[in-house]
C-alpha cells in the first residue's frame, strides 16, 4: 500500500470539508465509545486484566526469537508450513508462489492488515489470481476501485448507507436498495459463490499460540471461518509480534479484544486453527501456510518503541481519539490510522515520510487510558517528535522558535523583559477588543477561532508592583 501520510494536512482539510464524512464520523463515534464503556464494566477488574494482558505481550517480546522458534516447531509438527518474509514484497512473492504451486485462480480473503501493508491484492491480480475481499467492509472498498480503509476494524466507517447503496447497484447490476439487511443479504449471496469456488483462503491472524501452533482468528461475520474451512489452501499472514504463549493467555486477551474493539463481550466467532485437514475429515484445508512477516517489526524489538509491538489491533485508540473523530482514518494516509497509526506509520514507512503524524495529536491520553495492553501512545508520539528533531526533520522556523523560547525562559530577567513587551504587543493588536481575529505570529490558531486578548501586563509585573 502506497503511503499518502506525507499529505496529512491536505487529507485532513479534505475530510473537514466533506459533510457526508463528518456526519458519518459523528454517528460512529458514539456507538463505539458508549458500547465499550458498558462492556468493560462486565469485567470485575478491568485494570488488572489490562495489566495481565500487557505482561503476556511483554513476556513474548522480551524473547521473541525463542517464542517464534517455538511456534514454528509446534506448528510444523502439526503439518503446517512456516515461511518468513522480510517485507511486503516478499509476502507478495510467497503468496503468489503458493498460489501457482496449487493451481489457484481465485483467493478469498478474510481481513488482513498486513496484506494491506504489502499491497497483496495488486500482486495477486498481476499474477492472474483473483483476490476477493470477504469482510463486508473490505469488500465494499474493493469494489469501489480499491479504496483505502479508514479504520482497522470497521474499514468503511466513513461511508454512508447511500454511498453503499449506489455502489452495490452499480457493481452487482441489481435494483438500488437502501435497506441495510437487504444489502447485507446481497453481499452474502455474491460472496457465498466466491467462498465455494476459491481454491485458496488468505487470512490474517489475531494471535499465534506457541503452545499449540495455532492461529486465532476473531470475526463477527463468519468470513474468517469460510476462508479457512472451504478452500484447499489456507495462507495465514501475520506479523512476527503476534505470538502469545498459551491458550490461557488467549482467554485473557479475548476478554479485552472484543470489548475494546466493538464493545462486545465476545466476538461471534473465535476460531483456533491448527494444522491441516485430518484423515476422514470432510472439510478443512489440505495445506496450511504461515507467513511470518517482519516489515519493520524486528527493528522495534529492544528499542524505545518496543511497547508498540504489544498492539492487538482493537481500534480503541482511534475510536476515542479527538483528532480521529474529527478527520476520520483515510486522512492518516496509510493502513493504520489514529494514535496507533501515527506511531506505526513513521516507524514502518520512514520518519521522513510521515512528518505530521506524530504531531497530529493533542496528547490528551484518552488513547493511553483505553488501550487494552497499556501502550503509552502519547509518550511514543512524543519520542517520535524527539527523533524528528534529532534527525533535523523539523522546519527551520519551528526549531528556532522552540530554541528561542527555551533560551529566554532560562534567563529570568530577559524573560521578564521579553514577556513584558510581548503582552503589550498582543494587547495593542487587540486594540481594546476582547479578542484578536488574526494573529500573524501563529496564523494556525486564528484559522478557526479568535485569540483571546491578554490583560496587558504580566503577572510578575503586577505582583512586584503589589509587593512594594
Amino acid at each position: 500500500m502506497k503511503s499518502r501520510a506525507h499529505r496529512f494536512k491536505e487529507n485532513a482539510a479534505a475530510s473537514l470539508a466533506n459533510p457526508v464524512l463528518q456526519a458519518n464520523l459523528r454517528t460512529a463515534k458514539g456507538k463505539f465509545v458508549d458500547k465499550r464503556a458498558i462492556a468493560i464494566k462486565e469485567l470485575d477488574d478491568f485494570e488488572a486484566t489490562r495489566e495481565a494482558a500487557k505482561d503476556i505481550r511483554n513476556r513474548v517480546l522480551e524473547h521473541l526469537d525463542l517464542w517464534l522458534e517455538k511456534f514454528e516447531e509446534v506448528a510444523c509438527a502439526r503439518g503446517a508450513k512456516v515461511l518468513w518474509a522480510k517485507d511486503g514484497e516478499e509476502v507478495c512473492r510467497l503468496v503468489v508462489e503458493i498460489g501457482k504451486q496449487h493451481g489457484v485462480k481465485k483467493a478469498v480473503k478474510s481481513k488482513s492488515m498486513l496484506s494491506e501493508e504489502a499491497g497483496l491484492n495488486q500482486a495477486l491480480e498481476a499474477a492472474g489470481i483473483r483476490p476477493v475481499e470477504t469482510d463486508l467492509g473490505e469488500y465494499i472498498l474493493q469494489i469501489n476501485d480499491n479504496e483505502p480503509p479508514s479504520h482497522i476494524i470497521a474499514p468503511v466507517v466513513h461511508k454512508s448507507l447511500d454511498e453503499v447503496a449506489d455502489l452495490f447497484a452499480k457493481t452487482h447490476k441489481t435494483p438500488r436498495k437502501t435497506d441495510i439487511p437487504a444489502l447485507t443479504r446481497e453481499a452474502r449471496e455474491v460472496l457465498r459463490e466466491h467462498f465455494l469456488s476459491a481454491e485458496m483462503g488468505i487470512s490474517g491472524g489475531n494471535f499465534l499460540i506457541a503452545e499449540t501452533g495455532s492461529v486465532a482468528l476473531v470475526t463477527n461475520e463468519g468470513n474468517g471461518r469460510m476462508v479457512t474451512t472451504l478452500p484447499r489452501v489456507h495462507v495465514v499472514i501475520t506479523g512476527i509480534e503476534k505470538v502469545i504463549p498459551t491458550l490461557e493467555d488467549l482467554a485473557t486477551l479475548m476478554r479485552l479484544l472484543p470489548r475494546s474493539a466493538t464493545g462486545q463481550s465476545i466476538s461471534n466467532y473465535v476460531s483456533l486453527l491448527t494444522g491441516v485437514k485430518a484423515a476422514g475429515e470432510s472439510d478443512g484445508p489440505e495445506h496450511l501456510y504461515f507467513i511470518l512477516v517482519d516489515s519493520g517489526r524486528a527493528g522495534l524489538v529492544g528499542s524505545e518503541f518496543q511497547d508498540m509491538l504489544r498492539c492487538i489491533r482493537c481500534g480503541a485508540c482511534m475510536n476515542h481519539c479527538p483528532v480521529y473523530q474529527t478527520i476520520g482514518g483515510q486522512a492518516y494516509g496509510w493502513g493504520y490510522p489514529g494514535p496507533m497509526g501515527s506511531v506505526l506509520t513513521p516507524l514502518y514507512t520512514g520518519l521522513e515520510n510521515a512528518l505530521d503524524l506524530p504531531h497530529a495529536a493533542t496528547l490528551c491520553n484518552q488513547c493511553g487510558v483505553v488501550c487494552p495492553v497499556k501502550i503509552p501512545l502519547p509518550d511514543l508520539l512524543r519520542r517520535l517528535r524527539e527523533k524528528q528533531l534529532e534527525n533535523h526533520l523539523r522546519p527551520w522556523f519551528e526549531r528556532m522558535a522552540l530554541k528561542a523560547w527555551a533560551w529566554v525562559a532560562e534567563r529570568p530577567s530577559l524573560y521578564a523583559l521579553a514577556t513584558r513587551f510581548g503582552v503589550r504587543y498582543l494587547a495593542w493588536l487587540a486594540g481594546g477588543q476582547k479578542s484578536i481575529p488574526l494573529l500573524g505570529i501563529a496564523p494556525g490558531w486564528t484559522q478557526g477561532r479568535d485569540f483571546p486578548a491578554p490583560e496587558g501586563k504580566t503577572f510578575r509585573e503586577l505582583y512586584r508592583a503589589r509587593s512594594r
Partner: protein
Amino acid sequence: MKVALFVTCLIDLMRPRVGFAALELLTAAGGEVEVPETQTCCGQPAWNSGDRASAIRLAKKLIAEFEGFDYVVVPSGSCADHIKHEYPAILGDEPEWQARAVALGRRVYELTDFLVHVVRLEAVPGRFAGRVTYHDSCTGLRSLGIKAQPRALLKRAGVEVLEMNGAEECCGFGGTFSVKFGEISAAIAERKCANACATGAAAIVGGDLGCLLNIEGKLRRMGDETTQVLHIAEVLTAKS
C-alpha cells in the same frame, strides 16, 4: 507550612488575575505563600515538541527554584503533571537530579487538589452568581485524577454545576497542536463549545488556561459574546 505558587507561563502572560485568584485561595487556606521571582516556564512545550535538551535545562531550573518549599501549587493540571510525573523521566540519565525531581514531585499539587486534599479548604472566599459547566482538562483528569476536587469546591462556593456531554473529552488545544493543526484543533473545540453551550450555563469553567483560551477563542469566533470562560480560581474568588 511554606507554600510556593508556580504561576505558569500562560497565566503570567495572558491572565494575571488567575494567578492572583490562586494566591487569594492559598492565603485563605492559611498558607504562607511565596511566588519565587525567577520562575518562568516548566519546559513542557519543549518536552512535548521533542526538544529534550531544553526540557532538561528548564526542569533543573524549576527544581532548584522550588525544592525548598513544603508544597508547590500549580493552577494547571497539565503543568503540575509535567513537574510531578515527567521530570523524573526527563532527568532519567542523571540519577542525582532525578532523585531531586522525585522528591519535589511528591510536594507538587494541582490547585484544586491541594485545596481539597491537603488544606481541606471549607470556607471558599468567593461567591459566583450563575450556573457553570466544568471542562475536565485531559492531563489533570487522566494523570492526576482531577475530577471531584473542582466540583467539590464549586459546591462549597454555592455554584451549581450543569454537566455537559463529553466533559472529559479533549477540547482540541494540545499545546503546539493548536497552532500546527489549527483547523482540526478548532473543529474539536467546536464540539466542546456546542456541548458546553447546550447546558445553558452562564460560564464554562476549567482548571487549565490553555484549554480555556482555546474554548474562549472558538466561542467568540462562533459569535457567542456572552458565555463567560473562567478559570476555577476566578470563580472561587469571585465577588459578584
